[in-house]
């Protein structure tokens, strides 16, 4: 499929846009721009829709763009929909430019010096890299964390996919699943958790250029090679961003730094998997705005369906546009549970039938499902997992049925998440 590249510019910068557009077409990409009326405040949903369909957004930066409400709306739509923003400077800009500060600074280029070839290269770089997948459900206890770890361990071990996890939950259960307390304390003391990525200043913060040192390897790398299975560890101090203890300015900085971190991870993995917190908070917004695809695990029970409906509302509200079912995968977790009562009929069949019949999520429901299994429980307490990947069900003895289900489900999710 031809990748669409959105061009955001003001009439004053049309000459640069006219030079760039044919070069993009020559590369086989399709340059797009919203119609003039789409850039009005009343048409924000329609603008978000157009921007979200583009693989990357080129913003021609100039004083005219700085003053433009249309550009501001286009940038907001791109940020809310996880699009890669490439700032292309076409005129002198003040040092305190608010527009430049809101864009991805690590991708910034000067059109007057570097010209069209640099723009083409920047777009090519943006189109490469892994997909961002968020494990998300507004309801808790549906198996987001355990499934994230085990599904993508299967993808790594069976399909040789390179995976980077991001633990975006203040409870940091994904980090606890993989790393024992001693390791977690070491990682925290070395400012190697996601908290250090969020903080711009102070002893606990890390420079953006140092983000590549954040991921902790979860496999033993062979012969000096980098581990293809790694984790940006979670941190309980993330609660500062879910309560009102951090200013809006700090949150804006965290938003921008989080985008930069995800951008770095995309360059080194086939899939960047975000384990998000339940509920709807600033952290949930980060996960939604970064994700190319959302996986919603659902347990065969009534309340899970309510959680799904809330999820659609929250994502639609953050992205500011109607959603497409293809942006989601709904995965039934814990089917064939012999320990529960089937008094009201087979809960698996009832839940599957209800979701299948739903107008929006019906086509997002995966045929594959993960059976209820003891193999998915936590690692045995009296054994040491020196190699963190060994705690996953896929590496442990037994549970053939669940392992096969995990591998099939992971492959189906990665197929759906592909561009």
């Amino acid at each position: 499929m031809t990748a669409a590249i959105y061009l955001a510019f003001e009439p004053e910068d049309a000459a640069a846009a006219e030079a760039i557009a044919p070069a993009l077409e020559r590369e086989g990409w399709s340059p797009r721009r919203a119609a003039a009326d789409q850039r009005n405040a009343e048409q924000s949903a329609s603008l978000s829709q157009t921007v979200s369909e583009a693989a990357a957004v080129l913003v021609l930066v100039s004083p005219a763009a700085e003053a433009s409400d249309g550009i501001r709306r286009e940038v907001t739509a791109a940020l809310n929909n996880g699009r890669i923003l490439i700032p292309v400077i076409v005129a002198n800009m003040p040092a305190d430019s608010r527009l430049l500060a809101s864009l991805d600074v690590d991708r910034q280029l000067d059109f007057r010096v570097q010209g069209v070839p640099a723009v083409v290269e920047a777009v090519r770089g943006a189109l490469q890299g892994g997909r961002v997948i968020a494990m998300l459900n507004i309801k808790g206890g549906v198996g987001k964390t355990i499934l994230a770890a085990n599904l993508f361990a299967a993808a790594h071990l069976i399909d040789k996919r390179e995976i980077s996890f991001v633990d975006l939950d203040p409870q940091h259960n994904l980090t606890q699943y993989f790393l024992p307390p001693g390791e977690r304390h070491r990682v925290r003391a070395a400012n190697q958790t996601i908290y250090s990525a969020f903080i711009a200043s102070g002893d606990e913060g890390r420079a953006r250029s140092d983000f590549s040192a954040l991921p902790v390897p979860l496999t033993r790398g062979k012969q000096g090679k980098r581990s293809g299975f790694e984790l940006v560890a979670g941190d309980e101090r993330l609660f500062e961003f879910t309560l009102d203890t951090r200013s809006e300015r700090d949150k804006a900085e965290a938003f921008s730094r989080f985008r930069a971190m995800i951008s770095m991870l995309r360059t080194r993995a086939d899939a960047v998997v975000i384990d998000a917190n339940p509920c709807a908070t600033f952290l949930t917004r980060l996960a939604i705005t970064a994700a190319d695809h959302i996986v919603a695990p659902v347990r065969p029970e009534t309340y899970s369906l309510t959680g799904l409906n809330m999820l659609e509302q929250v994502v639609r509200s953050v992205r500011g546009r109607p959603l497409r079912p293809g942006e989601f995968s709904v995965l039934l977790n814990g089917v064939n549970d012999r320990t529960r009562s089937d008094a009201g009929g087979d809960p698996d069949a009832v839940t599957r039938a209800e979701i299948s019949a739903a107008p929006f999520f019906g086509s997002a429901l995966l045929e594959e499902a993960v059976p209820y299994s003891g193999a998915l429980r936590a690692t045995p307490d009296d054994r040491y997992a020196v190699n963190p990947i060994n705690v996953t069900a896929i590496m442990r003895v037994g549970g053939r049925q669940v392992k096969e289900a995990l591998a099939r489900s992971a492959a189906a999710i990665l197929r759906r998440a592909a561009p």
Partner: protein
Amino acid sequence: MTPAQKAILRAMARGRSKAELTEMFALIRARSDRTLLAALKTPKKRAAKKAGDPVVKEVDLALRKILGPSAEKAELLVEHMARKHRVALSVAPKGVADGVRRLRPHFSDAQIRAGAKSLLAEIAGRYSKRETVV
């Protein structure tokens, strides 16, 4: 009875007393063909079970507390021995038994046994599951 049948009987009776032959005829009448044929088979010779290498057994038992494939445990042991004794070892063992075999040219059995124990002690310190509460 045909002459051939008589010849088979004579071959069977050769060197046996009348009492022995009476007992044999009674046995044949009482048992099925299948039982008699199975009894005639010579038992297969079974190879004597090899006694396992006691060092391998001990090391394997010591490393059982580590969650992971045998090759990985052996790799940990080799790395640990190299660190402990400050020796450069470029060994990629296929499992615990192979690891012990490859360590033998460099270390005594006692050193290997002690190495497995100290590896586990080191890991227990680093990867203890004990949570602390503030």
